[in-house]
């Protein structure tokens, strides 16, 4: 069995075993073990990748290719490069953290963990597959469990939010499907068989008319998942209603599928289309960046604040991807990673605070630093990381994006860049607003004085997420070089 398919097989096995478990204790133990194995595998994969990379010059390494539907030339084709390796690591960490955070799921625990793992299976599969069809399959597998996860274990207007989220994302994937088919039927421009294989399609040059037609479909199809303005509205409601671990996985990992897909499919396969449309989508993305930041400024619900800040941060990702140069793309991918960790950490902390105080309204909270110092301190750190403080991952990513974006001549790009840069100030404002109101000041509610600080599993979850953030921020070189090296062939494809 090849080392990549394990990423799909192990969670599936975990799910099967979970099927036979009884009660919360068994369920969480099993899923924890499963996720730990996953984490081990992805760490191992990193090293394996570095070893392989020395001797292997291909774009993708560890490639495997099994014919699936011969008539359509559909293959189960997998392979990874530095980017997917990094994202796999992100996924496994967030999943494990998620399992820890949802340690005390009392309602239908088994089903909860199963859905969680189905989601992660989809994500893993998406990241390893290099065949558009399998990619699409895994994409939908990853999205659909959200409905149950939010609907059953959510809070507030959960039915509404779940339905909204699922329909918007599925609608997006519907648009995407047309794009994928379009690419497929233009994939033999130079003669030869139709194919879904990304690497093969990248070799042929798809006619410009087709690119012009299908780039927007593909881009939007993926970007909706990346909360592209104005298709972001599923995200605030969805996050607000979702249970903690789900918000973590969703914002931390699932939304990354958007950026990744745009990078792998839209940009890589339809570069001419990208060049043709970039102005339009840059406007959208830049708007999203500013808009999300300002949107977060007014909210009082912690999750809404975080959701809007995600809109802003991921807008940055799409923005950078559209800048079509190495540095910006590097930044985009780093931003994906760092946002993944940070926002997951945020949601985890929000979940803890909510679990203790039973409110997410910052105006009702106050002085938490006094009563739950550890959680609050971490929250401050996460906040600082998210406003792009040096020493944390956010800074590295954003600087790459800005420098990269600035490489593009032309007033339009410059203005867009400077607008997006200015978002860092607004970010600082809304982050510090929350910190100031919620963590500092006097304790508003006497009951809060009895609150307990983080338990061992919560602490574990937090540290799992915090360490990579700091690691990336303090020593970004290895990561950025790994990504740059993997971006190289893609950028050549574009130019």
């Amino acid at each position, binding site marked *: 069995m090849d080392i990549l398919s394990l990423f799909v097989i192990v969670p599936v096995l975990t799910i099967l075993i979970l099927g036979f478990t009884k009660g919360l204790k068994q369920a969480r133990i099993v899923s924890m073990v499963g996720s730990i194995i996953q984490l081990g595998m992805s760490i191992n994969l990193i090293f394996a990748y570095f070893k392989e990379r020395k001797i292997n010059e291909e774009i993708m390494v560890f490639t495997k290719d099994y014919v*699936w*539907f*011969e*008539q*359509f030339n*559909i293959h189960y084709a997998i392979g990874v490069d530095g980017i997917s390796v990094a994202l796999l690591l992100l996924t496994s960490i967030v999943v494990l953290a998620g399992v820890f955070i949802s340690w005390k799921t009392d309602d239908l625990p088994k089903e909860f963990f199963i859905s969680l793992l189905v989601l992660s299976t989809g994500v893993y599969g998406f990241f390893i597959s290099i065949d558009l*069809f399998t990619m699409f*399959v*895994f994409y*939908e*597998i990853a999205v*659909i469990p959200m*409905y*149950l996860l939010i*609907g*059953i274990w959510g809070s507030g207007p*959960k*039915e509404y939010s*779940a*339905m909204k989220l*699922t*329909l918007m994302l*599925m*609608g997006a994937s*519907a*648009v995407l*499907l*047309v794009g994928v*088919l*379009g690419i*497929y*039927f233009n994939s033999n421009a130079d003669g030869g068989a139709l194919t879904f294989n990304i690497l093969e399609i990248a070799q042929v040059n798809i006619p410009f008319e087709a690119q012009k*037609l299908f780039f927007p479909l593909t881009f939007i199809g993926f970007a909706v998942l990346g909360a592209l303005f104005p298709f972001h509205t599923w995200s605030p409601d969805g996050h607000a209603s979702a249970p903690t671990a789900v918000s973590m996985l969703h914002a931390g990992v699932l939304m990354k599928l958007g950026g990744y897909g745009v990078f792998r499919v839209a940009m890589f396969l339809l570069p001419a289309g990208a060049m043709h449309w970039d102005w339009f989508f840059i406007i959208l993305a830049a708007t999203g960046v500013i808009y999300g930041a300002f949107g977060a400024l007014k909210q009082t619900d912690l999750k809404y604040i975080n959701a809007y800040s995600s809109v802003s941060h991921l807008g940055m990702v799409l923005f950078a991807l559209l800048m079509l140069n190495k540095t910006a793309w590097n930044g985009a991918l780093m931003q994906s990673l760092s946002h993944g960790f940070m926002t997951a950490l945020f949601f985890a902390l929000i979940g803890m605070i909510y679990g203790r105080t039973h409110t997410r309204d910052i105006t009702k909270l106050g002085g938490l630093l006094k009563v739950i110092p550890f959680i609050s301190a971490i929250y401050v750190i996460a906040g600082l990381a998210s406003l792009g403080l040096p020493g944390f991952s956010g800074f590295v990513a954003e600087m790459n994006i800005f420098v990269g974006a600035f490489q593009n001549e032309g007033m339009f790009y410059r203005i867009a860049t400077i607008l997006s840069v200015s978002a860092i100030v607004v970010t600082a404002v809304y982050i510090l607003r929350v910190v100031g109101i919620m963590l500092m000041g006097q304790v508003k509610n006497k009951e809060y004085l009895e609150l307990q600080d983080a338990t061992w599993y919560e602490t574990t979850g937090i540290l799992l997420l915090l360490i990579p953030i700091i690691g990336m921020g303090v020593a970004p070189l290895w990561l950025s070089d790994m990504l740059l090296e993997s971006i190289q062939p893609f950028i050549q494809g574009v130019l």
Partner: protein
Amino acid sequence: MNLDSFLIMRHEILLLTITLLLLVGEIFISKSKKSSLVHLAIFLFGIHTAVGFLAIDESSIFGGSFQTNNLIHFFKNVLNIGVFILLLQSADWIEEKIVGENRGTEFFILLFSSLLGMYFMISAGDFLMFYIGLELSTLPVAALAAYETTKRKSSEAGIKLILSAALASGVSLFGISLLYATSGSIFFNDIIEVITSTNLTILGFILFFAGLSFKISLVPFHFWTADVYEGAPISVASYLSVISKGAAVFILMILMFTVFKPLIHIWENMVYVVALATMFIGNLFALRQQNMKRFLAFSSIAQAGFILLGLITGTQLGTATIVYFVMIYIFSNLAAFGVVQAISLKTGKENMDDYNGLYRTNPNLSLIMMLALFSLAGIPPVAGFFGKFFLFTAAASKGYYMLVFLAVVNVTISLYYYLLVIRAMFIRRSETPIPFFKNKLYMRLGLFITVIGILVLGLYSPLYDYIYELSSVFN
């Protein structure tokens, strides 16, 4: 012509024999033992289904009136499996009827004769055989729809079906007569030679098309569907929605890809329009439904619309995808109907609200229902996704990107109402949930087979390849 050339009619002969056997049994078995006929029927039909898989050689008899080939043969087997599952699922119900209201075995007899009609319909070589098959497949179902003689709804369903069916067959007969007028023959093979797109031919074709669309319940020939499904017994409804629809689709496909191929420049546009109408109308009506049978009726209308995406191509790819999809559709829909059947059998509840909190009392049924609905909605990794995806691919291969786009929009709409059911079962709570109950063996077996089908058909690719090469015969 020697006798063993009749062997290509093996399906028909066997089925006829079974029917007669049951008839005889009806006469000789005493009232008290009648219920054993159910087991007998299932047993016999099981054998029939199994035997059906034996290879059969491609030829035709009756001067070409009756023809068969591997694809037809394969499709008959698919129908057999469908009917077999259906029997398993409705066994308890019919047994109850026999014991409770001391009804006879007419259910089986009618069902089998209708199936017999379908055999003849899909392996017809001329319009006469086709017409007879059509009627033979329709009339018994009308009787079955009115099976519940004590229920007003049932009778109403019967009336509506028989009247609409009569109208439809009348119309299509008129169409056939026109075709006969222009081509001078009722044999498909002769017609292919001479058919040209004169106005009369087109008119004839449209009338004929309407007659068949009635069975597939394409908009605007679909009106009867919902009412009949709602009124008729669940088994009959599910029979209508999968078996008869599947057979009709199949024969329509054959005729359009062979006989009416020269008219493709006409009917591709026609199919385009009808497909859109069907998908949108079906989905928009399904949104509001509370009664599960009615709900599934409209969903099945929408599904028919999707099938047309394969029909529009007129290529081998189209044939393959259609057969593949119909097969998957049969399994998915049977699963859904099976769950509805099981629940209504135990509790008599058929509304969506009654399903609230079902998962917490009957997890397995809910899971089966979820799989079925996901398959119908086209969510991977269950089979439905592959079926739909390939249909879209087929349409896209002809460059109908707009149609595909609108189709996927419809997929999203349909996802909405499928999720409504899932919401009821998994998310909603209820003070009076359907209590836990255990199904009889037959029902469980029936559901089990469908689940296997839903899970395997999609992921197991050789099946599709097999169908694809079978499909070469019609192009």
